């Protein structure tokens, strides 16, 4: 044993001696020396000594204490990650070591629990996305869009990809990173004055597109005309890939039922911890006829040697470990435990809970948008119907976000939009009317401060302010402003 650290190896000195005797070597060093050239070995690395477990916990708590959590204020942050409640039952299930500490279910006899749970996840994903075949998870919503695009390239043999300007800029960025490797040419379709993808622009877009990629609701929170976009895409011989908010599937028709060929989603906010953006998971569903192009693992039901129902990883001939360079994707490790969390969460919600959740968010967002408009932060797209999130247009959205953060209201991110940057406001079922009223009052006060008309310390001593003061005595939050970095 070294220092005070723990390395989780169980060997006693007697074990090591006995094992070396079996190997007929003098030391473990001899095993390395026989294989690794001496000049490649290092004696000591420049790393701190190990720590006892109590020291590790204390150290980590000190670091954690230097972060303000979303609970230290009031969270209106969105842009793809939302503060939906995670019920206790999710942690109880995904914390079980039988799920958490298993490997990929390569031996079905020992993994029926995991395989059945993933089969159920696929069924749930198929339901909320509206297409018959869903895989058992991808990394996140953004990489799921890249996988969807790859499927469209293979389906059409084309290389041009039309991407709506309503797709989150972070997702666009991930797609752009992979564009040279995929050999694709990306054409951005701007959103119109109503905040929606301009179908007219689609008509004038270059010919020969493999895919039209949209987000629904889009990054400005505005719902897209999915049926019309599907029709236009199909008329041009392209497939429609929709990145969807699965938790709105109780109020919005799943895009797969509206003509989308591939539907993706991000599972981060559906039963997983926010955890600064990961791990969550990506969901992807497609039509049955496209299943041979599906990326990642797929669980199928079959029969065992005794005729019983059994679950296995199936169509593995699509995957990298069999098909190698001709695989549909390179993904191996996925986000199975996060997919399990999504499945438990959706089971907890049930159909009625899913509807109530969606309606609660919609009602809250509508109310909050009205109040903010009255406080001088009007909707950026007044003619664009929105879901649980909306964009407001103010003179300096970064300054407003920073000012609000100082009062404990976490709002944002700021995203680029036609006509200048806008500030996003997301409303989950956890936000109350009182918080919305306080947000509106604080927006008014901060705007006055910013325009030099109000008292320097702000006028709205709302709930958020006192909570932050209590939680972070070391200094105010938000000095640097909220951005998508």
């Amino acid at each position: 044993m070294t220092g005070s650290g723990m390395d989780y190896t169980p060997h006693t000195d007697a074990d090591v001696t006995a094992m070396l005797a079996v190997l007929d070597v003098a030391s473990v060093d001899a095993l390395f020396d026989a294989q690794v050239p001496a000049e490649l070995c290092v004696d000591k690395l420049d790393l701190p000594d190990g720590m006892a477990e109590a020291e590790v916990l204390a150290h980590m708590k000190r670091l954690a204490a230097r972060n303000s959590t979303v609970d230290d204020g009031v969270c209106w942050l969105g842009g793809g990650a939302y503060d939906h409640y995670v019920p206790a039952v999710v942690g109880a299930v995904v914390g079980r070591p039988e799920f958490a500490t298993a490997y990929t279910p390569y031996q079905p006899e020992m993994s029926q629990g995991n395989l059945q749970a993933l089969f159920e996840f696929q069924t749930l994903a198929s339901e909320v996305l509206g297409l018959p075949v869903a895989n058992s998870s991808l990394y996140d919503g953004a990489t799921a869009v890249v996988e969807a695009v790859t499927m469209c390239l293979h389906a059409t043999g084309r290389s041009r990809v039309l991407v709506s300007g309503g797709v989150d800029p972070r997702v666009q960025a991930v797609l752009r990173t992979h564009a040279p490797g995929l050999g694709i040419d990306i054409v951005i379709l701007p959103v119109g004055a109503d905040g929606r993808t301009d179908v007219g622009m689609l008509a004038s877009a270059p010919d020969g597109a493999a895919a039209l990629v949209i987000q629904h609701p889009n990054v400005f929170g505005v719902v897209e005309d999915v049926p019309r976009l599907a029709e236009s895409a199909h008329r041009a011989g392209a497939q429609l890939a929709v990145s969807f908010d699965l938790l709105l599937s109780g109020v919005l028709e799943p895009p797969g039922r509206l003509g989308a060929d591939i539907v993706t989603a991000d599972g981060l906010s559906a039963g997983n911890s926010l955890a600064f953006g990961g791990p969550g998971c990506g969901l992807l569903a497609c039509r049955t006829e496209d299943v041979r192009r599906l990326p990642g693992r797929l669980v199928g039901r079959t029969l065992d040697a005794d005729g019983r129902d059994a679950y296995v990883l199936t169509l593995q001939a699509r995957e990298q470990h069999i098909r190698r360079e001709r695989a549909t994707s390179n993904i191996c490790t996925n986000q199975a435990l996060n997919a399990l969390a999504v499945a438990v969460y959706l089971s907890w919600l049930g159909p009625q809970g899913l509807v109530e959740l969606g309606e609660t968010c919609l009602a809250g967002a509508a109310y909050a948008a009205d109040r903010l408009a009255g406080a001088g932060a009007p909707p950026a797209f007044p003619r664009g119907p929105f879901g649980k999130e909306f964009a407001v247009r103010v003179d300096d959205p970064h300054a407003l976000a920073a000012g609000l953060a100082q009062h404990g209201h976490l709002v944002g991110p700021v995203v680029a939009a036609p006509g200048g940057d806008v500030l996003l406001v997301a409303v989950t079922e956890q936000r109350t009317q009182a918080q919305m009223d306080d947000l509106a009052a604080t927006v008014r006060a901060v705007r006055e401060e910013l325009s030099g008309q109000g008292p320097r310390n702000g006028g709205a001593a709302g709930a958020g302010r006192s909570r932050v003061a209590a939680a972070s005595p070391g200094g105010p939050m938000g000095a640097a402003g909220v951005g998508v970095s």
Partner: protein
Amino acid sequence: MTGGVAPEPLLFESSRAGRRASTIPATGISRSGARDRLPAGLTSATAPQLPELSERDIVRHYTRLAHRNFSIDEGFYPLGSCTMKYNPKIAEVVAALPGFARLHPAQPPDQVQGLLELLCALEAGLCELAGMAAVTLQPAAGAAGELTGLTLIRAYHESRGEHRTRVLIPDAAHGTNPASVRLAGYEVVEVPSDASGRIDLEAIKEIVDGRVAALMLTNPNTLGLFERNITEIARLLHDCGAKLYYDGANLNAIVGRARPGDMGFDVVHLNVHKTFGTPHGGGGPGAGPVGVTPDLVRFLPGPRPAQLPDGMYGWRDEPDSIGRVHGWHGNIGILVRAYSYLISLGGAGLRHVSERAVLNANYLLARVADDYDLPYPAPVMHEFVVSARRHRRASGVRALDIAKSLIDRGFHPMTVYFPLIVDEAMMIEPTETESRETLDAFAAALRELAEEAATAPETLRQAPVTTPVRRPDEARAARHLVPRWYPPADAPAS
């Protein structure tokens, strides 16, 4: 795994109309008419068919499913190249701290100074272990790291006006390597292994030229053998302007004792769900940080956590960044666990990891060497490959039958039929966290099975017999695809 015999109904089969578990808060605002302001054509006519269950139904269902699942917490899991080591429980405790778990990714840097400091410290630690100049933490898994690394290499060559087209990989490589190469837009050129089980140096000499962007290597390789000629290989590649890529799947063999950077590697991905003890989650999540040499730093994905001149932590973008490879900042919750592992063990503890991993692999190999064929001679590093070909020849018993028989003895089987270059391959990686008693018991089981293969081969072919299901029909699963449940009335005809 108690292997309960009674099948567990699907969530949907236990559903009862009107039952529910969820409660939605009263926000003070009426929900009624909430969807009326959305266009009628977009609102849903019927809710998705989620199951209707009580919380107790959910808990019992998943508890029963858990009982039908084997895990590292239950027993030995010697999957070769998967590094199924024990996952320290403290990592779960720290990852669940609200100061890490309850952070929104769009919170500004001044609200997440502790996390950014952690990420910078983790990067520094990984740089030191890999011998690299800088690391990106964004890739969500090893394969995502491979694609990131290859995209960095592409950006590097293109910045020099070079349009290279090929990437070399050994024939023993993991399947993710060739798949990633294709996604990065390169052509795969396979390099054969030599008689010693290592990449054929002469073959590299013949292939490497100005068309080659990189060579991807796992070192030690998937046979558990160290690529002794690595310095020479690096020189061959570098002389042609090509880069050397380190697939970190097998880093556990050398962690703390040897560094890919010192061997001449230019790009390194690390699998924190292997080497750094984060749990594998039944398939994920993992994390696949990528380290690079100084000349590649300016291409790294951004934004990168950084300590700024004023001492505060923030974000920084590299001037020629390839862009984002994750929607946010990577699998932060996994990286927090990896960091706790790193500080727990420290430099000396990590060195112990590779020492014990190599000791365990060689010990277990010595214990099974009489009963199975060893295609390449010992010693090995952290894992080894033996072959069941003598049993197949003698009695028809295959590696698969031996794997299935191990299940009845309470062990998770090793990886079988990989690497592809070994007939009836059985690839065994015990890891450092297993005791001598466990290794002895596993070796004894393999010996019994070798004997049984001769005396009672049919028993092996029938295995397993103690599990909820036996040898599911995989061909049928692919031929009659059933990827989801439907209510009996709605099931599509198949």
